[in-house]
C-alpha cells in the first residue's frame, strides 16, 4: 500500500481532543486504519483510544507502515490530569519527562513539566497522592507512545492541557462543554510549536576545509575520525591556527592518502603527547633487538604488561642466538615505562 508523505504524526486519545484539528486541516480517511487520517500538509492524525495497550498497537501499526519516511515526528496532544494543586485547569504545557506507573524507564522530551502515565483510569486519592510524588501531570497513553517512538527511533513531543485536578473523580477526562475550547488551545499550541525553529544540531565544521580538497583523501572511517578529532580539538580549546600550522607542515608532495594519515597521526599526538612519546620510546627500546626471526609487540593501549614475542626457529645454532637475544630484551625498562617511572 502506498503511503502519503508525512512529516508529523499527531496522536490523540479521543476525538474530542482532535476536533479543532479536523476543522483546521483537510484530513482524509486512510485505508491503513479507520482511526487514522492524513492531509496534504504532511500531517497524519491518529486516534489511539485510551490506555497504554492501544497506544502501543496503533502507533506501532502506523510507524511500521511509514518506516521508510525519512523524517517523521510524533506529537501527542491531549488532556492530562493535574496531580498537584498549583496547576490551573485549562493551562497548556509541553511535557519534559515521561514516567510510567510501575515502570523504571523514563523518556526525556523538550518541555517544562513532568508527566506520569497511569495504568488505570480512575484514581483513588491514595493512588493520585502516590503518583504525585513522581510528576505533577498524569495521563493514560504518553509513556506507551514514547516507548514505540523510541523503538522506531522517531522524535516525539507532547503538549497537554490540564483537564482536572486532584480530588476529581476521574482523571484525564474531556467533557462536552470544554472539549471545543481545549482542542482549540491544543491546536494553537501545536501551530506555535511547529512554527518555532528547531535548532540545527551543531555540525562539526571542517575548519581546515580539506574534506573535499583534492590534496587530501579521506576514507569513510578517516572522515569520521577527523570529525571526531576536530570535536576533541575544540573541547580541548586548541587553536585553529595551531591546527593550520600542523596541516601546513605536512609535505605537500606526499600522496593525498598519506597526507591524510599523517594529519590524523599528528592530531592524535597533540591530544596525547605523553603517550605518543611513550610509544615512540618503547618502539626505540625494542628496535635494536628485533630482526626477521624475532619480533616484539607491546599492547598499543599500553594497558597490558605483557609482550607478544614472535620467534622463527631454523636450527640449533640460530635457536641459541635467539635465546641470547631474548635474554637481552630490555624488559625492566619496558616495565618501568609502564609504571610511569621513566621521564619522557
Amino acid at each position: 500500500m502506498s503511503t502519503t508523505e508525512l512529516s508529523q504524526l499527531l496522536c490523540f486519545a479521543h476525538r474530542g481532543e482532535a476536533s479543532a484539528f479536523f476543522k483546521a486541516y483537510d484530513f482524509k480517511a486512510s485505508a491503513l486504519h479507520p482511526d487514522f487520517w492524513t492531509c496534504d500538509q504532511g500531517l497524519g492524525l491518529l486516534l489511539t483510544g485510551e490506555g497504554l495497550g492501544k497506544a502501543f498497537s496503533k502507533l506501532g501499526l502506523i510507524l511500521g507502515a511509514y518506516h521508510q519516511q525519512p523524517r517523521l515526528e510524533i506529537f501527542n496532544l491531549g488532556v492530562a490530569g493535574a496531580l498537584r494543586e498549583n496547576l490551573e485547569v485549562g493551562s497548556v504545557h509541553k511535557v519534559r519527562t515521561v514516567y510510567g506507573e510501575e515502570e523504571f524507564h523514563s523518556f526525556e522530551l523538550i518541555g517544562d513539566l513532568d508527566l506520569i502515565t497511569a495504568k488505570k483510569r480512575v484514581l483513588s486519592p491514595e493512588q493520585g497522592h502516590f503518583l504525585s510524588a513522581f510528576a505533577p501531570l498524569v495521563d493514560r497513553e504518553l509513556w506507551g507512545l514514547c516507548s514505540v517512538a523510541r523503538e522506531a527511533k522517531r522524535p516525539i513531543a507532547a503538549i497537554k492541557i490540564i483537564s482536572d485536578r486532584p480530588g476529581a473523580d476521574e482523571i484525564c477526562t474531556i467533557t462536552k462543554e470544554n472539549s471545543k475550547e481545549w482542542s482549540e488551545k491544543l491546536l494553537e499550541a501545536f501551530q506555535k510549536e511547529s512554527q518555532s525553529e528547531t535548532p540545527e544540531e551543531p555540525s562539526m565544521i571542517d575548519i581546515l576545509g580539506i574534506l573535499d580538497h583534492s590534496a587530501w583523501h579521506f576514507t569513510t572511517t578517516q572522515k569520521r575520525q577527523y570529525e571526531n578529532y576536530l570535536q576533541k580539538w575544540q573541547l580541548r580549546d586548541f587553536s585553529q591556527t595551531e591546527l593550520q600550522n600542523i596541516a601546513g607542515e605536512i609535505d605537500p608532495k606526499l600522496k593525498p592518502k598519506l597526507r591524510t594519515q599523517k594529519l590524523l597521526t599528528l592530531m592524535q599526538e597533540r591530544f596525547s603527547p605523553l603517550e605518543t612519546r611513550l610509544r615512540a620510546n618503547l618502539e626505540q627500546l625494542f628496535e635494536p633487538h628485533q630482526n626477521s626471526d624475532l619480533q616484539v609487540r607491546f599492547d598499543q593501549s599500553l594497558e597490558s604488561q605483557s609482550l607478544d614475542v614472535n620467534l622463527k626457529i631454523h636450527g640449533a645454532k640460530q635457536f641459541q642466538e635467539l635465546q641470547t637475544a631474548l635474554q637481552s630484551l630490555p624488559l625492566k625498562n619496558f616495565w618501568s615505562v609502564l609504571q610511569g617511572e621513566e621521564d619522557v
Partner: protein
Amino acid sequence: MFKRIFVEKEMRDHPRVLQFLSSFPNIPTQEIEEIDKIFNRVKKPYLQKRDNLQAFLGRKRGSLVKPAPDAYGLSGSPHYYFIHSYNCLYECQYCYLQGYFDSPDLVFFLNHEEIGEKIKEVCDSHPDQEEVWFHAGEFSDSLALSHLTGELPYYFSLFQTLPKARLELRTKSANIKELKALSPQKNITVSFSLSTAAQVKAFDLKTPPLKTRLKAMRELQNLGHPIGIHIDPVIYEDDFEKKFAELFQEMKTQLDLSAVHYVSLGVVRFTKDVYHQVQKNYPDSPLHGADWVKSFDQKVRYSRPLRNWMLGKIKALGLAAGFNEKQIYLCMEEMEN
C-alpha cells in the same frame, strides 16, 4: 534549593526533620510511606538537579555501616563507611553518583542514633585493632548541607566516647559553620578534596573555588581540627607539573603541612555507565578530549603509564613541598599495578 520535600510518615515529628523543614517554610512538603518506594523507582534525569531538585527525609533501614573497599583510606586498619545521605548539591562532571543512583534527588537519613549504635557495635567487634575508621560521605558531601541536617554535634559526642574509632568527614565545600562551633577532636578528620584552581573551575561545577576551600581548611586547622587532603580525581592538563606545583605552593602558604593528617592521591576513573552519563550530561566537557582506555578492571581510565606517571609526579611535588612519605598514600591505584 528544593522544589518539594518528601517526609516519611514515621519521621514526621522527628526533631531533625522539623529543624530541616523550618529552613524551608515555603517549600511544599509531602508525606510518603517509605523513601525506597519513590526514590530510584523511576529514572529521573540527572540534570534535573538544576531546576527540579527534591529532598527526601527519612530513616535509613537495612545495613547502616558497611565495610569500605580494600584500598580505601590509610592501610592497616579496618575501614567502614556509613550512609546518612544520598546525592549531592554540587555537580562535579566526573562524579560517580551520576551513574550510581537513578535520581539526582537528595536523600537525608536522619536516624543518626541508630547509625551511631551500629558504629559502636562495629568498633567493639575489633578489640585487637588500635584504630577503626568510619567514613561519611561515600554517597554525598559530608559538610555541604550540614547546617540543615544538623548531625555533626551528635557524631562529635559519639566519637568522644569511642577513642579508637576514627571518623573522616569528606567534603568539597567550605561550609564549616557547624564545625567551628564544635570542639576539635583528635579522632575526627575533615578531609578536603582539592585539585588545581583551573580544574576546580572547569570540572567541579557549583563547588567553592580552591582559594575558598583552602581558607576554610586553614580556619579549621587554626582551631585545632585535624584535616586531610584528597587530590582525587587527578586529571591531566597541559603544564601538568607546573599547575600541580602551584597547587602545592598554595597549600604550603595556607596550611601547616606537617599537621595535615594524610594526602591521598587517585587518578580519575569511571565505570562504563558513569562515563556514558558524563558524555550525556556534559557533552562539552574537556574530559572528552582525553584518550581513555578500558583498563584491567573494565573502568575507563588514562593509559597505565600516564596514570602512574601522574601519581609519581604529584607525589614527588608533594614531598618537595614539605609533606613526608608517611602522609601520602595512593588511593585505589597502588593496589592495581
